[in-house]
């Protein structure tokens, strides 16, 4: 985790340098946008991590492994896909929850299916898609898009359960 932190900090510093080099206050603007996002999402972050803490403390290993553990095959991938569609909120809420399920024993396939399905098929973002692109487009995209979590989940299961 320390390496990841260092890499992210280096990326942030690199971008800061590029923004500063523009000489138009982009670096200050960028930092401000980041800060505002953080302030707005802080309550969600705290609640998400409280959930993570309880999931951790309750030790749901058996439950997680029975539903979406390695070796649950198609069932795990389908449950992961369905759960991903229903997960509410942005990445800072969803990723800690998926991470704790993975640590509690979810298989790679179901976990990847959940991430991908949240990213591509989340029902909350479909409510933005409908008014701007219409139902024909939305239905078509979802019909094509459902292939992604299923295939990725299947490949993940084959790779590592």
């Amino acid at each position: 985790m320390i390496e990841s932190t260092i890499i992210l900090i280096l990326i942030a510093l690199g971008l800061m340098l590029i923004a500063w080099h523009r000489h138009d206050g982009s670096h200050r603007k960028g930092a401000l946008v980041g800060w505002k996002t953080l302030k707005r999402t802080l309550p969600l972050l705290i609640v998400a991590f409280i959930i993570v803490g309880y999931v951790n403390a309750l030790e749901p290993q058996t439950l997680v492994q029975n539903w979406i553990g390695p070796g649950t095959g198609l069932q795990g991938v389908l449950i992961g896909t369905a759960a991903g569609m229903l997960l509410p909120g942005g990445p800072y809420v969803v990723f800690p929850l998926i991470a704790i399920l993975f640590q509690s024993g979810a298989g790679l396939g179901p976990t990847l299916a959940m991430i991908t399905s949240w990213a591509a098929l989340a029902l909350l973002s479909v409510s933005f898609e409908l008014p701007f692109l219409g139902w024909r487009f939305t239905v078509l995209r979802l019909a094509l898009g459902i292939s992604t979590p299923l295939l990725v989940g299947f490949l993940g299961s084959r790779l590592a359960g």
Partner: protein
Amino acid sequence: MKKLKVDWTLVALTGVAFALAGVAWWKGGQDLALEGLRQGFQTLVSVTPMLLAAFLTAGLTNVLISKELVERWLTTSAGWRGILLGCIGGALIPGGPYVYYPIAGSLLKSGAGLGVLVAFVTAKNLWSISRLPYEFALLGSHLTLVRYALTFIFPPLLGYLAETLFGNTIQRIRESVQ
């Protein structure tokens, strides 16, 4: 009086947190109920440096890539070139669904093809650069790399399939929105 806006995600998640606290209390009394809180805050504190860097990175990407640029690129391109530009535009465009769907809507109105639009939305969902720092920080580098590698082919592939199989329905899609 300021109108109170309810954040339903926060309400739902708070409900889940209370339910889990209840389960913990029922299973292990006060000790387990407090233990959950303690572990949650401990995890949050341990990822805080990474989260700060992630929010800074996301904010800077947001400012460095202009929406206008992406929009200008995508309106006039078609064919394979259009699908690939759609993918790159989707990967680069910052912001949530309230940002990229209105942009996709205006691309649709100004004449973009079905393949370009599907590639754009799918790449936003699967290749998003602005989400990468959060994914990296919260899910870890291993899961993130495997996920990106396995989903890499989908934005151009689905764009191509949509264009080849249903490209001729774009006029009806356009009419259904106007």
